[in-house]
């Protein structure tokens, strides 16, 4: 992942940090009473990794497809020679979702789709909150994807805007298969290595949903109703 552009001016600080923390230090000075009924587990040798039977280590890409589909994302598994999403697949999606307007991220994979969309008669607008909110389709790539959970990872510095994958009812992600990693650890555990992080890094696991009414899953509450993943294997 590329780092985001550096920040120019530090933010302000209000309230009394010294008094706030002095109070905490005072409270912690005597330690924490031991729980004799349920004693604390022994100290850790590092933070354990989360291992799950949802990952088949011999088939990372297959695991991603299975788990992404379980989240109700739609995966199109294609082997391509030129690294681009096949035109027939794009045309099919444009027709299925009745796409007239689209927004496209600044990632090279997505810009290529932008050109193809214009060939298909779809209006492609520069990205903003207003244009994303009007668009029928948002197209991005992903800096990584997580096999165990079927998750797409988007970096705002690379994408150039957060609204492309958020406001349109359909999100199309063009995903080169070699970006799929086994678990969340490969994405998250490296974030503290000193790079400047992007203003927004988002892990997207399926279409937007809510279970707030009778715990029945309703798709597409505020984010996309549909997540289409064009998974491209090099042929």
């Amino acid at each position, binding site marked *: 992942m590329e780092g*985001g*552009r550096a*920040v*120019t001016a*530090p*933010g*302000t*600080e*209000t*309230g*009394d*940090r010294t008094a*706030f923390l002095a109070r905490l*230090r005072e*409270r*912690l000075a005597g330690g924490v*009473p031991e729980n004799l*009924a*349920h004693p604390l*587990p022994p100290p*850790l040798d590092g*933070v*354990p990794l*989360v291992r*799950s039977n*949802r990952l088949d280590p011999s088939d990372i890409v297959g695991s991603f497809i299975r788990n992404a589909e379980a989240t109700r994302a739609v995966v199109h598994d294609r082997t391509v020679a030129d690294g681009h999403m096949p035109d027939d697949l794009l045309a099919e999606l444009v027709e299925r979702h009745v796409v007239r307007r689209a927004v496209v991220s600044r990632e090279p994979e997505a810009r290529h789709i932008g050109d193809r969309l214009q060939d298909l008669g779809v209006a492609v607008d520069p*990205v903003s*909150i207003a244009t994303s909110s009007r668009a029928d389709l948002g197209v991005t790539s992903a800096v990584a994807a997580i096999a165990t*959970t079927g*998750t797409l990872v988007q970096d705002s510095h690379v994408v*150039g*805007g*957060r609204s492309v994958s*958020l*406001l349109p009812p359909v999100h199309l992600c063009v995903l080169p298969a070699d970006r799929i990693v086994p678990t*969340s*650890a490969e994405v*998250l*555990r490296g*974030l*503290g290595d000193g790079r400047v992080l992007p203003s*927004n*890094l*988002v*892990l997207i*696991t*399926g279409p*937007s*949903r*809510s*279970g*707030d*009414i*009778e*715990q*029945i899953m*309703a798709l597409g*509450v*505020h*984010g996309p109703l549909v997540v289409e993943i064009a998974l491209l294997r090099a042929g």
Partner: protein
Amino acid sequence: MSAEFTLVGTSLRERTTEATRDERLQASLARAIRHFARGREAAFATLDDGDALRRAARRMRHEILADLPNVLERFADRFRANGGHVHWAVDATDANAYIAEVARRIGARTVVKGKSMATEETGLNRALEEAGCTVVETDLGEWIIQLAQQTPSHIIAPAVHLDRYQVRDILETQAEPGRKLDTEPERLAAFAREQLRSRFLAADLGVSGCNVAVAETGSIVLVENEGNGRLCTTVPRVHIAVMGMERIVATWDQLDLLINLLARAGTGQHLSTYTNIITGARRVDEADGPDEVHVVILDNGRSDVLGTELHEILNCIRCGACLNVCPVYRQVGGHAYGWVYSGPVGAVLTPLLARREAEAAELANASTLCGACMDACPVSIPIQDLLLSLRRRKAADAGAAERAGWRAWAAAWSRPLTYRASIKAAALGRPLSRHAAMAPGLRGWAQGRTPPTPAERSFMQRWKAGEL
């Protein structure tokens, strides 16, 4: 328009009685807890050793809290270096005043909110309304209860007490006159999307909670499923995150473990639909995102808990798993707890944070001490031990007369002579036993308990007479 909490003005018994008599609530609760409890079990079953991870998470949370002042300092320094503004708020009034002042400075009229228990705790909506803002809750469940002027009844599913017909009636008040809504949840959700999208686009200020902050990069991590949290932190030009001071980890390794456990314990997902990592405001070459990002680090009674026998409750990551397995919550739902937090964790947090000690103390009794909460907890908090500690505190405050009474009973039943005498007296008073509950001083204790009827002749008497 703010909903009222019932902690003050009603008793636990009144609230639980009302809840257990409400058949519609019982049906909604049964459906919800079955769904959540099964989801959690299924998600944990896919892990190689979920229990070992829960134990590790307990130790990890313990070590973070033991070093909390330094971890918070590192976080605040990094957050500011990223261009974010930090406010240290000692209590709810302090936090609300800061947020209202930001709203005033930027001339905010519409404020959109992502789901946040911390701002329920501080009563932020009322403070912003008093400052002249229109506050819109955007999580579907939160929006429903805001419209109905109710309070959340579950930590992660605020409208869990309502069925689709009740939700339809509430949402229909927002539709144009004459428009009828379907009761299909997907259609109701689509109605919320349609209604709330314009509010998002008009909003000047977005307020969110903070699931976990990460000190080493000064980042805020928000998890959610609807996308409303992403909208609140993307569309308005200012974003303020309100963070309970304990909702933090030191490193990304720790975040990785915690976020995996949180989703599985809360909703039974392997990861939430959106894990939204925010590090500073939008950069100059980005098309969207807020120009200003603030974090309010909230104490509000939490520091009083540090270093006490209740310290471990600060490990809580608000997943709601303990509610779904609790035999008491399953019967009475969240409103019976009378305040923001419900279930086992609520029974511990309310006496500590609600600043109404007298009324909140009885919540420690809303537990069977079965320990199902600890078994479900993703960070293995021994909640039953904390509830016992609260009961001990309460007992220490009990009246001298009550304590003398129990002491006399204990002394009498510790010696055969006085024990037998009391049994004989009970047998003689047998016709009166049904009325024992009416005795002055016993009434409150005896309510809901059936007094045993002593046998005419005791076991010992019958044994000696050779009848057995």
